[in-house]
C-alpha cells in the first residue's frame, strides 16, 4: 500500500526531492499552485521530505514552553466537597448549639384551661356540643372549639389566644415537637395542618385509657385523666419552653427555660402557674408563665417524676375519669350527672378505724334511682364525681363486714360532699342502715338554695399533684407547699 502511495507513479510526481527553498516556501504557503501540487505529490511518496516538512514547521522553533501552571481556581474542584462538608458540619454544630442553649416547653392550652376554676359544663358527653367538638377539632383551632362550648369562659379563651399567639412568630424545629401525641406540625397554631396535634384530642367517640389509670388516687383528689398526662410535654430542650396539651393543637410557648437549663420532664400548668420537673428531677414553680421560677423544696424522699393538675373538670371530655377505686367513664358520668361538679367522697373504715380496701360502694340517686358502683382503693377511700345535685343513698359492702346503707345524703352542685362509712364485722348478709346527712350538706332547703346560688368556690383545693419514683403522691395548692396524700 505504501509503495503504491509513494511510488511516484502518478501525474505530477517529481523524481527529485524539493530543496530547502521549495520546502520552506511550501510550509509558508509561498509556492505557486503548480509547484505546490508537485511538492505535495512528492511529499506523498517521500517520507523523508514529509519528516523534513514536519520538523521545519514554525512551531518547532518556539522555545520549550514551561509546564502550564495549574490555575489557582482548579484547587477549588478539590476544595468544594471539603468546603461543603465543613459547611454542613458548622451548620450542624450551630443547630446543636441552638438546641442546647434554647429550650421550648410545649404546653397545650387545654391543659391550662383544665386548671382554671371549675367551669360549669353543659351535659358533656350527652350534649351535642361536646360531640360536635371532636370533628370540629380537626378543622378549627381549639380556641374556637372552646368558644363553641357553651360553658367556655371569655377569660379562658383570651388566655388561650394569648398563649397560642406566641408561637406564631416563633417557629420551632420539628425536633422539639412532642414525640407521642402533642406534636405540632409547625409553628402556626392557627393553621389547620396539625394532624399530629389533633390526634390526641381525646375524643369522646374514641376513648382510650390514659396513663393515669393505674395511678393511685386518694379520696381528696379530683383528677381527670387528661390532666394527669403531664408528661405529654415533650422532653426535648429547645430555645423556647413550650407546653403542649393533648386535646388541642395549640402549643403555648413561653420563652423562659427552666433554671439550670435542663430539659423539662413533666410540666403542669394552671393558668400562669406552671409546675415543672427538669431532667435532674428538680421541681420548679412559676407564677408568671415561666418568666420567673422558684425552686420547690422537696419534702418527699424520692425523686419527683411527674406533676399533674388535680383540679379539673370535664372540659376535655376525657374518656375516663378516675374515681375512688376505679375508673368511671365520663360518658356514664355525664349521663348521671350534668357535670355540676358535685362529688361524693369518703373513706370506708371498720370500727377500729382501719381502712377497708376493695369495698363496694354503691351511690344511688334517690330521684332517678340511677346508681354507680365504686370500689375503695387501698386507702379505703371512694369517690363519685359529677353527681347531679340531689339526695343519694350509699350502700357499702365488704367481705367479712356487714353492709351499711346510708340514706338522704345531700349532694349539692359544685360541692364536694364527704360521707365516711364504718362497717362492722359480720357476714355480708347483715346490713346496717343509717340515715345520714352529708357533713357539708345544708340542713335546710333555704340554705340549700342559697348554696346553689353561691359562686363556686372550693377553698384550699389542691391544684397540683406530684408523683415520685417511690410511688408517693403529693398535692399542693400553691405549688410550693406540699402535702402527702
Amino acid at each position, binding site marked *: 500500500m505504501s509503495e503504491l502511495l509513494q511510488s511516484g507513479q502518478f501525474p505530477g510526481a517529481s523524481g527529485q526531492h524539493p530543496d530547502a527553498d521549495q520546502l520552506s516556501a511550501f510550509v509558508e504557503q509561498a509556492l505557486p499552485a503548480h509547484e505546490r501540487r508537485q511538492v505535495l505529490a512528492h*511529499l506523498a511518496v517521500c517520507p523523508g521530505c514529509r519528516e*523534513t516538512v514536519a520538523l521545519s514547521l514554525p512551531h518547532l522553533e518556539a522555545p520549550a514552553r514551561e509546564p502550564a501552571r495549574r490555575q489557582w481556581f482548579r484547587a477549588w474542584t478539590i476544595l468544594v466537597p471539603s468546603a461543603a462538608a465543613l459547611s454542613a458540619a458548622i451548620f450542624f454544630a450551630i443547630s446543636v448549639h441552638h438546641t442546647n442553649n434554647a429550650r421550648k416547653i410545649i404546653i397545650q392550652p387545654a391543659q391550662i384551661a383544665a386548671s382554671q376554676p371549675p367551669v360549669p359544663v353543659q351535659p358533656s358527653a350527652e350534649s351535642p356540643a361536646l360531640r360536635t367538638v371532636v370533628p370540629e377539632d380537626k378543622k378549627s383551632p381549639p380556641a374556637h372549639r372552646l368558644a363553641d362550648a357553651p360553658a367556655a369562659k371569655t377569660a379562658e379563651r383570651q388566655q388561650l389566644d394569648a398563649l397560642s399567639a406566641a408561637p406564631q412568630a416563633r417557629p420551632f424545629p420539628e425536633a422539639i415537637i412532642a414525640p407521642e401525641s402533642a406534636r405540632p406540625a409547625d409553628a402556626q397554631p392557627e393553621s389547620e395542618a396539625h394532624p399530629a396535634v389533633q390526634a390526641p384530642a381525646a375524643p369522646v367517640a374514641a376513648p382510650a385509657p390514659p396513663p393515669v389509670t393505674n395511678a393511685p388516687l386518694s379520696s381528696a383528689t379530683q383528677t381527670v385523666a387528661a390532666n394527669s398526662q403531664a408528661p405529654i410535654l415533650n422532653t426535648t430542650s429547645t430555645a423556647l419552653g413550650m407546653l403542649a396539651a393533648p386535646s388541642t393543637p395549640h402549643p403555648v410557648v413561653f420563652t423562659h427555660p427552666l433554671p439550670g437549663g435542663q430539659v423539662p420532664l413533666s410540666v403542669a400548668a394552671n393558668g400562669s402557674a406552671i409546675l415543672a420537673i427538669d431532667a435532674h428531677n428538680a421541681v420548679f414553680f412559676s407564677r408568671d408563665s415561666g418568666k420567673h421560677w422558684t425552686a420547690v423544696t422537696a419534702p418527699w424522699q424520692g425523686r419527683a417524676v411527674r406533676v399533674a393538675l388535680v383540679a379539673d373538670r370535664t372540659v376535655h371530655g376525657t374518656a375516663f375519669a378516675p374515681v375512688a377505686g376505679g375508673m368511671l367513664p365520663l360518658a356514664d358520668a355525664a349521663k348521671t350527672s350534668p357535670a355540676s361538679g358535685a362529688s361524693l367522697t369518703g373513706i370506708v373504715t371498720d370500727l377500729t378505724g382501719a381502712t377497708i380496701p376493695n369495698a363496694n360502694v354503691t351511690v344511688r340517686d334517690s330521684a332517678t334511682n340511677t346508681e354507680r358502683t365504686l370500689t375503695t382503693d387501698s386507702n379505703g377511700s371512694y369517690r363519685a364525681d359529677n353527681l347531679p345535685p340531689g339526695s343519694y343513698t350509699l350502700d357499702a359492702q365488704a367481705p367479712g363486714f356487714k353492709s351499711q346503707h346510708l340514706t338522704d345524703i345531700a349532694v349539692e352542685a359544685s360541692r364536694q360532699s364527704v360521707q365516711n362509712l364504718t362497717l362492722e364485722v359480720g357476714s355480708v348478709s347483715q346490713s346496717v342502715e343509717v340515715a345520714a346527712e352529708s357533713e357539708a350538706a345544708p340542713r335546710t332547703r333555704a340554705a340549700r338554695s342559697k348554696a346553689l346560688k353561691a359562686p363556686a368556690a372550693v377553698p384550699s383545693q389542691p391544684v397540683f399533684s406530684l408523683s415520685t419514683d417511690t410511688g408517693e403522691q403529693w398535692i399542693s395548692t400553691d405549688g410550693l407547699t406540699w402535702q402527702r396524700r
Partner: protein
Amino acid sequence: MDTASSKPGDLVLPVQAGEPSSTVHSLVGLPPSLLDELWAQADAEPLGLTRAEFAQSLVSVGAKLNYNLPPDVAAAAAQKIAFFRSLHLAELALAHACALGREPAWERFLSLHRASLIQSAIAITGFSSLGEELADSLYAELYGLRETDGQRRSPLMSYTGRGSLAGWLRTTLVQRFRDHHRRTHREAPLEGIDSPATPAAAPAETTALSAAVARTLTHLDPEDRFLLVAYYLDRQTLLQIAHTIHVHEATISRRLKRLVADLHKQLLRNLCSSGLSRAAAEEALGADPRDIEINLRALLQNSQVSAFQSQKGMSDLA
C-alpha cells in the same frame, strides 16, 4: 568574523558592481522605477550589496523559478513585476550579500538569525549540545568555507526569497540533522537488522483487491494522497497536517473521512469493473481487513529506505 568581500572566491555575477543604473536595467530588463522600488524595499545598500548585484539576484531568481509560472509558460511583464514584489526582498538581499561574503551582511545576519538558528537547532535535535553543534556546522557551511572548483559555495545562494529566510534556515537545519542522523545510524550493528521476510504468494482473491487498490490510489489527487500518507502511514496528528498545508484540523478530519468513503466507493467500482459482482466486491473488501492492515504496516516499514535518495547539492555540502 572575517570579511569575505576581499577573498578570491567571491561569486561572479554578470553585472559588475558600480555599473551604471541604465546598464543594469538594460541587462535585467527591469523598468528603472521598479528596480528603484525594489532596491529601496530591500534596503540592500547597508549590506554592501550593489544595485547591480541586487538586480542580478532578482534576475537569477526569476529565471530559476520562471516567475512562479509553469515551465512552459512565458512570463509577461506584469507577472514579472508581481513576482518581484512578492519576494522577501530584504532577506533575499541579505542572503545574497552573505553569500557574496559582505561583512555588513554577515553582521546583520548574525544579529537577526544567529540566536534563532541555535534555538531552532536545539528544538529540532532535542539536545542543546547537538543543536549548538548543528547550528555551528550550518553557520560554517553558510559562510562558504567550502569551495567548489576554486569558488566559495554558499547554500544561501539557493535562497530565492519566496519564503522567509528563517523558514529556509529551519528547513536547511532539518535536512542537515537528517543527514547527521543517517550518518550516525549507519553504525548500527548489522545483526540487529532483520532481513525482510520474503513476501508470500498472494492469494488469488486478494490479487484483484490489490490491483483495484493500486488503480484507486494512482488516480488520487496529490493533496489527498498526502493526507492519507501523513495521517495513516506517518501517524501525524491532524494538527500537524493542518500546520503543514495550512488548513484547519477540522477540515483535515472532514476531508479524511470523505476521502476514505470515496476510496471505498472507488475500490468497489474498480473491483466491479474487474469482473466481480457487487456482493463479491464487498466481500473482498471486508473479507480479511487484518491482512490488509498487516501488509500496510510491513510496507510502511520498508518504504523509508528511499529518503533523500536524489537530494542534490545539500548532500554534497553535508
